[in-house]
């Protein structure tokens, strides 16, 4: 019994402490681990160029970050959620039910997703169809869907090296996986004609397009890119999926494959030639703008040309700068809340 009393006393004591605590003076950010490096670069530059303290940037995933943002308004909720995918209607509903009315959606740029293998191995030139034919559970053969039996990349496409198929792809909890599914597998599914066959067979949404084979040639990586890199290091035949910025920091260990004949770079991604990319966002709680010191300055600083522009530190680290940055700057200045999702 005593232990319980003591625990209760500790709780009461901590509540009293909390009441005495001073107001929060630093910005709190949480969310996507893809946006984390960019957000920490900006936070660091913000801290050293302004008299405001350096914001605290937490990772934990896009979904978790948006959920935290929508927990409510107040000093013990976060101000900004980083996200590598667009906010969902369910998040907006959650926000509304917790009294978070106005949210700004700020697109900071684009993230390229690249396919890379060991630097000393063979080089690859892929198309989405190659990936679909290599990894999907069912592929088209002579006009019908059959189980995938391809063993080497040459089985998939005679132009590719005769190297065993082994792919390290992001696990389903990653935002990157969604992009891989949509921009690579579904595109390949469509290109090989499998999508039509799926639909004809009654699979309305062609879900079979993203069903992967389970015989061990495609390995889900639930960790981060450092884990994928370590796996490739141990398994020289493998091909891994990385973010462009991660690849650019490890060009001495990895070689990148082209996709549909386009080499991934900030230029080809910005121009839209390289197909596998996605926009990155952060979401700001407008109710906090005049409460948390420096919040407005921080978001303006984030999207300024000096930081997010093509010559800024974010682009140098691998972020593809947004061609419509000026529009975003204008929007942030006017604190325009996001419109309803279409």
């Amino acid at each position: 019994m005593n232990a319980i009393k003591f625990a209760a006393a500790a709780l009461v004591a901590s509540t009293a402490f909390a009441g005495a605590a001073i107001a929060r003076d630093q910005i709190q950010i949480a969310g996507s681990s893809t946006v984390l490096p960019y957000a920490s670069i900006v936070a660091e530059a913000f801290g050293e160029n302004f008299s405001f303290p350096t914001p605290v940037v937490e990772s934990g995933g896009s979904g978790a970050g948006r959920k935290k943002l929508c927990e409510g308004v107040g000093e013990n909720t976060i101000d900004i959620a980083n996200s590598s995918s667009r906010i969902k209607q369910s998040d907006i509903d959650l926000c509304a039910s917790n009294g978070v009315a106005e949210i700004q959606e700020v697109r900071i740029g684009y993230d390229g997703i690249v396919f890379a293998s060991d630097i000393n191995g063979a080089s690859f030139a892929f198309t989405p169809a190659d990936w679909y034919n290599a990894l999907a559970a069912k592929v088209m053969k002579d006009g019908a869907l059959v189980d995938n039996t391809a063993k080497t990349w040459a089985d998939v496409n005679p132009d590719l090296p005769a190297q065993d198929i082994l792919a390290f792809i992001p696990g389903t909890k990653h935002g990157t996986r969604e992009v891989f599914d949509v921009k690579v597998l579904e595109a390949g599914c469509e290109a090989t004609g499998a999508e039509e066959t799926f639909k004809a067979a009654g699979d309305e949404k062609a879900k079979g397009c993203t069903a992967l084979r389970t015989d061990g040639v495609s390995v889900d990586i639930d960790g981060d890119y450092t884990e994928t890199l370590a796996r490739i290091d141990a398994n020289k035949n493998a091909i891994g999926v990385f973010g462009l910025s991660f690849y650019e920091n490890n060009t001495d260990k990895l070689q990148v494959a082209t996709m549909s004949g386009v080499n991934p770079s900030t230029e080809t991604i910005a121009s839209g030639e390289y197909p596998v990319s996605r926009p990155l966002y952060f979401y700001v709680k407008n109710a906090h703008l005049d409460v948390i010191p420096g919040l407005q300055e921080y978001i303006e600083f984030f999207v300024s040309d000096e930081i997010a522009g093509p010559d800024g530190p974010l682009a140098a680290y691998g972020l593809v700068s947004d061609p419509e940055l000026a529009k975003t700057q204008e929007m942030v200045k006017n604190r325009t809340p996001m419109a309803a999702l279409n």
Partner: protein
Amino acid sequence: MTEVTADIATATGRLDGRSLFKVGERTRKRQAAERRFRMMGLAAVIFSILALIGLMTSILSNGLSSFRQTYVTMDIHLDAAKLDKQGNRNPADLEKITTFTIQPLIQSALQKTMQERGISVDGVNAKKAVELISKEAPAQLRRFILENPQVIGTTVSFDLLASGRIDGYYKGRVTMESAALDRNISPEQLMLADKFKQAGILESRFNWAFFTAPDASDTRPEAAGLGVAILGSAYMMLIVLVLALPIGVAASIYLEEFAPQNRWTDLIEVNIANLAAVPSIVFGILGLAIFINFVGLPQSAPIVGGLVLTLMTLPTIIIATRAALKAVPPSINDAALGIGASKMQAIFHHILPLAAPGILTGTIIGLAQALGETAPLLLIGMVAFVREYPGAPPEGFFDPASALPVQVYNWTQRGDPAFVERASGAIIVLLIFLVVMNAIAILLRRRFERRW
């Protein structure tokens, strides 16, 4: 009589063909089994030692280099025309100096140094040359200028961090071959660094900043340090010590000396033993639900981490304290009561002092366990990029901070290979803390423990 002799005859008869001095078949089997068991035991010990050696060599070989850092020393002219256009040294105006205006000063200073010393490498222009210097340098200059506005217009000698790749070159992580493939550095830049070294303006030193500097972003691994993490861990340990020790000792004394033996105390005892075995992440979930969402304590703050770790450490301390109290012979208690001491006097004057070494050992081991804990901190927002040092206690307990194991976790996720070295270095620092704490616990036990 005849029966007895017959018995002896049969008994000796069983020994037929066997001698007590010759090893029989069954004995040999038993001895072989024992030898096998001893071999297996030895193999297990050797295996664990090899595993430990493997782990330590990997950590030490990766991490020891993080205790040294490469610096470039040069004179930089702090141009008044660029830094203070009004010329009035007004602190409010000086605040507006950005690192973007300081960067060109470093570039031209480097150019000047290279010209004066006649250093040049083909294919390395001014922009490429300045890449040898860390991106932290402009921030370092800006801090220095804001603290000493009178230096504007003069020439000051600075020790600037070399960039992570250059630092890696002198630690063997980057080679000429890897640089040829690396987009962030070229072999020519490495040659330039070698010339700097010959000229004596580039050298490597003991890396004090690793222990004092805050974390840095992915673009400047060379500037990342453990300052905030060490401070955060220290704050949390302080909270754990201040809360868990008195609560744990009070609970143990009550349970051991005062509580009646009934079903309720049995239930509590079982639950304390169970709590000690609960996975630590569960305490993190509890911390998030109670301390942050219900009580409203701030995110990422050492106070929340400390409270969560207190809950985690309490069972360990209670179990150790009860064992220590039990180990004190009852005759001491009886003697104290016999000469008229009250129960409380007997406990505080006689039993507790004798049990103190055991209690302290348990507490230190509990603290060491809490120091290395990451999982509960994941959920309460301490796995974060934190650059500001928390303030002095008690207000500092509510400021965001990081923690040592969390810093290791963070750094292993970064893209730049230089962070692998930093993470291993942080592991070494953490291990040193743990070894010191455990050594103190052993010392206390050896020195003060009494056996009856």
